[in-house]
Every structure is written in C-alpha cells, then in structure tokens.
C-alpha cells in the first residue's frame, strides 16, 4: 500500500539524506564545524566570526554551503505543518483537547474536523483515549492549534501505536517516502508516522504487524548505518 507523497513527506529541514553532503560528523554544542566566510549557518549552527559553530548536539552536516546540525536525540519540539499523532484527553463544547507528547496542549476545533460533527456526537467521533493523526497549523502561547482537514489525517482505528525518538522520524520516512514504502510493501501494513515520534501500525495479521514494528525500531536504533535503505531490503529477506 503506497503512501501518497504529501502524507509521508517530512518537514524539509529534517531531510537527512542529501546528494551534496560532503561531511557528516557528531558535534557537541560549541564545537567548530567548519571555518570560512562562505558557509551559511543553518538549523542548529551559528556563526562566530570566521567559524561556524554547533548550537546543539547532533550530526553536523555540510551540504554545499549550508552547515547544520541534525538532531539525533532529545524531546519533540512542535513545528507548524508537522503531522503528529495525538491522544484525546478532553472534550469541550467546541473541540477536542489532545496530548501531543510535547509541551502545550493541542486543540482541535470542531470546525476542523473533516466532515460535519454535531456537538452532541463529538465523543462518538473522537472519544477520550482515541488517537488521531492531526496537522499543526499554528502554535501560539500555551496552545497548539490542530486540524483534521488534509490527506492522511483523521481518527486512527485498530492497530496499535508506539513511540520512537522523534529525531529518528526522517529516517523512518526516508527520502520521498522510500523507507516507509519499503516497510509497507514488505509487511502489507498501513503505517502512519507522526513527527512527534509516535507510529501507528495496522495490518492484515499480527505477524505482519509485529514485523513492521520490529523494522521501524531497527531503523530507529541504527540511523548511523549508511545505505540504510539497501540494508533494510536485505533485512527483510532475513527477518
């Protein structure tokens, strides 16, 4: 089951695979990544005179002129346009409150549901404890505004969810969805990966579902392997 491209695409700055990458090495905060006026500090990097320095711990990457630090660990930080999995914690008169496993409560207004929902049947659509794939459309103050309108969004039914480190999500999806499609093709499972690290799997048999989870966790624990997609093709023949 192929994923529509715009459902699977990661937020562009998280793409971990790039044709022009000339150097990748683990850096600690404050460490010099490269020296030279030509370089542009991107996410996780800053300029200090001649030097481009890491502003966080992670994989320092030089791609052409852009220098950034890709996270390898840490809590999920919500970003606009991220698709995340959230758990309903409360129902108010005009919407649902969701726990997105990050600071700030997610709020899904009744107006942002994909079809008309009557105020009296809100809990029939989404009850407390239910999971939905939602998109963050704005972050302000203490609240995160969500929508269910869009491809790949909606209430999730059946299957199970589990957590991986949010920084590993881009590798699970892969360039233009290549990795996630590989997993889906090999396990015949529906899989939705939230940028917050929560993953939903639902398949035709328990065996397929457990295998899909194993694959996701294996990738998440082995992001340092180069040629990971090829490696996983082989993995599927052995597992």
């Amino acid at each position, binding site marked *: 089951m192929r994923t529509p491209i715009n459902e699977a695409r990661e937020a562009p700055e998280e793409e971990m695979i790039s044709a022009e990458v000339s150097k990748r090495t683990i850096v600690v905060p404050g460490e010099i990544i490269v020296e030279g006026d030509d370089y542009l500090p991107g996410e996780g990097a800053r300029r200090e005179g001649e030097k481009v320095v890491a502003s966080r711990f992670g994989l320092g990457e030089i791609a052409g002129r852009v220098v950034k630090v890709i996270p390898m660990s840490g809590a999920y930080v919500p970003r606009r346009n991220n698709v995340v999995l959230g*758990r309903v914690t409360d129902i108010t008169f005009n919407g649902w409150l969701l726990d997105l496993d990050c600071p700030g409560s997610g709020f899904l207004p009744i107006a942002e549901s994909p079809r008309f929902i009557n105020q009296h049947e809100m809990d029939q659509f989404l009850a407390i404890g*239910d999971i939905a794939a939602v998109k963050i459309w704005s972050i302000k103050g203490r609240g995160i505004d969500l929508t269910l309108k869009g491809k790949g969004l909606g209430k999730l*039914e059946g299957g*199970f*969810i*589990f*957590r991986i480190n949010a920084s590993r999500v881009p590798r699970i999806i892969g360039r233009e969805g290549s990795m996630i499609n590989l997993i889906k093709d090999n396990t015949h499972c529906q899989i939705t990966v939230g940028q917050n690290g929560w993953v939903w799997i639902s398949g035709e048999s*328990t065996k397929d579902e457990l295998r899909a*989870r194993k694959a996701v966790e294996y990738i998440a624990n082995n992001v340092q392997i180069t040629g990971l997609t090829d490696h996983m093709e082989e993995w599927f023949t052995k597992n």
Partner: protein
Amino acid sequence: MDISNLTRDYLHKLFKEGQRFDGRGLLDLKDVSIEYGVSNKAEGSARVKIGKTEVIAGVKIDVGTPYPDSLDSGNLVVSGDLLPLASPRFEMGPPGFGGIEVPRLIDRLLRESGFIDFEGLCIKEGEKVWTLYVDVYPINDDGALIDAASLACVAALRHATLPELTEDQKVNRESKGKKKVPLNESMLPLSFTFFKLGDSLLLHPTREEEEACEAKITFGASKWEGTLMINSCQKGWETTFSRADIETMMDTIPEKYEELSKKLNKLLK
C-alpha cells in the same frame, strides 16, 4: 502520553493469542542481571536490571536500641523514593503512593520470609542492636519495578557486612567489617507481580504493557525448610482477580521461583 484505547484493545487481543511485542510468552521472565558493590560507602549495595528496568539498593547499618517487644532483635527500616530521574511519570515533591508502597511491600517480604536473622543482629540484649537501613531507588522504570526493587534489596543485603565497633563502642566507618549480615540464605525471598488485562495474566511487563493493564498483584515467596511458602500478598488497582486467576498464579510461582533462584545462584555470591 497515557495509553490509547486502540493500543489497549490491541494488547488485549495480542495477549489472548498468547503473544507479546517482544516475543516472550505471557508468563516468561525478562533477562535479569545483578551487580554487587555499586556504592562503596554502603555496607552493602547492588544494582539489578530486569530488561531495561534498573534499580539500585544500598544497606547502611547503625547501632540502635531494640524495640520493647523484641529486646534481643535488631531492626529493619526499608525506604527509598521513586526518583523523578527514572521516569517521566514520577513527580517531584513528597513521595506519591508508589514511593510509599514499594518500600512497604519489600519490608513485608523481608520480614515474613525470615530471611534476616534478627537475633543475630543483637549486640547486647535490651540495650544495643544493629539497625539495617535498606534504601532502594529506581534508575529507569520499564515495568516490573516492584520485582526489580525487591531483588535489589535482597542482593544488597547478601552483599552487606556488619560494621565493627571501636573501643568506645562507636561504629567504625573507616574500614569494612568482616562479618556478614546474618541471613538465612536458604530462604531467598523473591517477589512476583502479576498484571492482568482482560483475562490474560502477565509477568515482568514492559512499561507499555503495564500501562495497559487493569489490575496487579504482588506475591512474596521464599523457602521454609525446603518448602516454597507464600509470605505476602498485595492486590492493587481497580479491577478484579478471579479465583481461577489466583489458582493459576499459585501454579506458576513455584516454577518461576525455581527459575529465578537458579539464575540468581549463578549471579549471587
């Protein structure tokens, strides 16, 4: 995030099929490891890992006075805290119920089993006895915390030596004593906490499994003159266990006790 409806339903179904995410059987134990002497200022200490759950325990020993109703016996105080270090679910501040329950369960397990030779802790009847302070702290909670914590306390006690008294009858903290804490080693108290989801019973759950479960029950077991005895029991959480459940547990504990104690006797000194 708290457990979702769909994952709980899935686990319900998965357990009914006798399966778990990590491939174990429902009553299979996780890998257990024990390391001794993890804190050199303690009179005895140990680190236990059950899967990814990690707990450390230490024994400090001091001179104390006996209780009026047991003038020839030493004392035991079990305490500790659910350090917020070990889980996003543990809160800062005064101990929540979990922080109170764990040491109390371990205290009962140790006392009822007869593992500690309290009379052997007497220095001078009616006046001076040794008091054992056992403190237990989780470092990472991935389920089965009570079982890991009680094992850590038992291991720390087995590692512990009594301090020596100086000439003026004060505790000598400068050097380690040579006499071990008097224990009835053959008794080896172990705890087994069963968790229930729907009709399925589990041992050694991961945190994910534990969060889906609806009831738990902890049994303390040890050997009395070669026979396995149940020493303590505490049921927790909000739903019920049937008689059939308890019967299954009574059939399961003896084999799990043998399995775990064999494992330990390789690891325990």
